């Protein structure tokens, strides 16, 4: 098999040691995750658009089953870094990388890596809700069908389980055959989460999942992330500092492509090491 989530290695790197040293976790969280095991490890990892280096030599470990938030001003490379993890950037012809990025110990950009399998393991939810113009059922069943589940009963099970996990089952259970584009923005976004969960990924990448939603829908998505924490390794890009502090265990601060600081969330927000981080979280620039 290409990549197993439990085949974990911990490359010794200065930044990782720094991150673990800075980690502050409430005890109950520590139990859920069984400590910080790296799931995704970047080492001197850069992403370029042509000549332009959008992500600059990032070295960090993303810990298994924890929620890691990425914050930073617009254009600092948050999305680029996130999309590098499931190779969504492959869609951009000019985009290329250097350094190493490991997922469960295997090189994401390795020559033999099958990006299709990778994306099955590393699901992504985008900024703008993007359901297919198909029925709610077909949206959720899309992934399982791709991966060979065709039995109607089994599909129904998966659809229900995924929609329940995404806390939207009660709202849509009586109209699974209706077009998903008829749902509200917030419902669509939770549907997209359910669709991603249906292929049973290990990692969930969320790129500003609430920026297109109203406060009520945002609260629902945040609740959902709370529900899912502990079951999935979650990475969430957000503009909203409150959101980052509410939902995440760890936070990364990016500035102009550089990962300036990476620490346990409570720690980073109360006790930032870097003056840039402090300026950003106190709202001196954005």
């Amino acid at each position, binding site marked *: 098999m290409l990549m197993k989530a439990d085949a974990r290695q911990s490359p010794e790197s200065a930044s990782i040691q720094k991150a673990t040293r800075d980690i502050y976790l409430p005890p109950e969280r520590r139990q859920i995750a069984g400590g910080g095991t790296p799931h995704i490890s970047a080492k001197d990892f850069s992403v370029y658009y042509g000549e332009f280096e959008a992500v600059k030599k990032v070295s960090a470990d993303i810990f298994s089953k924890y929620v890691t938030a990425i914050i930073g001003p617009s254009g600092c490379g948050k999305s680029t870094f996130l999309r590098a993890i*499931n190779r*969504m950037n492959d*869609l951009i*012809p000019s985009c290329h990388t250097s350094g190493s990025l490991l997922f469960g110990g295997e090189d994401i950009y390795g020559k033999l890596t099958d990006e*299709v*399998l*990778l*994306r*099955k*393991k590393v*699901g*992504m939810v*985008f900024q*703008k809700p*993007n*359901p*297919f*113009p198909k029925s709610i059922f077909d949206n959720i069943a*899309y*992934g399982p069908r*791709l*991966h060979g589940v065709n039995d109607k009963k089994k599909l129904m099970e998966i659809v229900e389980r995924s929609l329940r996990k995404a806390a939207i089952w009660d709202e849509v259970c009586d109209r699974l055959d*209706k*077009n*998903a*584009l*008829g749902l509200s923005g917030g419902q669509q976004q939770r549907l*997209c989460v359910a*669709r*991603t969960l249906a*292929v049973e990924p290990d990692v969930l990448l969320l790129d500003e999942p609430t920026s297109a939603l109203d406060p009520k829908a945002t609260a629902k998505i945040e609740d959902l992330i709370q529900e899912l924490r502990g079951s999935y390794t979650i990475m969430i890009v957000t503009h909203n500092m409150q959101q980052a502090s509410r939902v995440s265990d760890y936070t990364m601060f990016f500035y102009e492509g550089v990962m300036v600081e990476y620490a346990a969330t409570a720690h980073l927000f109360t006790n930032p090491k870097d003056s840039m981080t402090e300026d950003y979280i106190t709202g001196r620039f954005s």
Partner: protein
Amino acid sequence: MNLGTRKILDRSFTAVGIGSIVLMALALMVVVVPIVSNGVGAMFFTGTVEHRKMLQSEFKRGEPRELAGEVAAAERYRARVYEMLAGFEAEMERMKPEQKAEYEEKYSPVRKTLQELLGPLPGDPAPMLTRFKYGQTRWEKAEERLHDLLYETKWDTSNPDVMSKEYFVSQATGFEGTSLAQLFPYVEKNIRKILLPKFTIYWGFLTDSSVDSHFFGGIWPEIQGTFFLAIGAMLFAFPLGVIAAIYFTEYAKPGFFNSMLRSANSTLAGVPSIVFGMFGLAFFINTLKVSESKSVIAGALTLAIMILPTIIRAAEEAILAVPKTYREASLGLGSTKWNTIATVILPAALPGILTGGVISLGRAAGETAPIIFTAAVSVGSAIGLADVFSSPTPALSWNIYNLASEHEAAAQIRHVQYGMVLALVSIVLLLNLSAIVLRARISKKLKG
């Protein structure tokens, strides 16, 4: 810019916009109204007993007994005409030679017009062409012939400074003092009883073959040929075009070769259709020898090449218009590229692709030049599906041109030509309309 100026500008733009739309609508009316009103005349007209005779003997249409009654009724009035002719012919025999010669010269056009009006007269040899077997089948034509019979057209050229003027001289005066003089008032008075005009609806115009190169009958072979050619062209061009569009949008690496291909495609879309016609003859018939000579398949292939660039471009645009987010969603779920194309991109692009397809279908149906050398014949019967590989076919577009310009009696069968134009315009309009409906329905389904 201050508010007042802005409002004035807005208003004047509205006026210009509405004006141009109205102008366009008027221009369209100028084209469409005559087409429809004349074309409808091919199916709805006042037909004479001659038309019913023709339908009965050429197509076995109508009630034979009823027709026999009508013919008998008409013959009663015609018999008097025949008597007068016979009487005058006998009278001429008794004349002095120079007088006889003079009357014969005047009599011969009268007799000929009567032939045209009533069909073969007693004593005439059986005509070879079907068109001479019957009198005037359409009342408005009969009225024209009647006028020819009653009046001689003369031109007043006395004043060289103005255009010569047309004037009519009663034919009867030419025969004054002879027994024929009474013929003219008799025919004029009894023309309705002789021809029995009756409002006729002739749907057979759409479903019958033509008789005697479109003198009588319908345009079914042309309609069928048009469908064969257009649908045949689609069968080749549509799958090929969609595949090419997928290649261009999803697989082609940007570069010299790719941009060459693209500009070649754009150029092809602008090549005059007659060039495709010549190409079709040279390539499909002379080089590939898909058929001995003109055939439906050669025409369909030529049309396919002609519409291919349009289909490719429409499909390309439709595919590019599919939101990037669908692609990301699908790939993000671990879908392969091909799977994403097949299950997400193509369904979402379908309305645009189909619209391009149906509009191209309409274009293939309407083009004349590509089929002149490859598929079209001016007169022919409807061919079977099995014959498409070997037989040419008549087709609406080509036959409209042919009837307008090359037919030996174009002026006498204008109604057929207009009928064909109406049929062709209707087919193209229907196709475009169905494209709009199809597009709306699929878009609605996609939007939920």
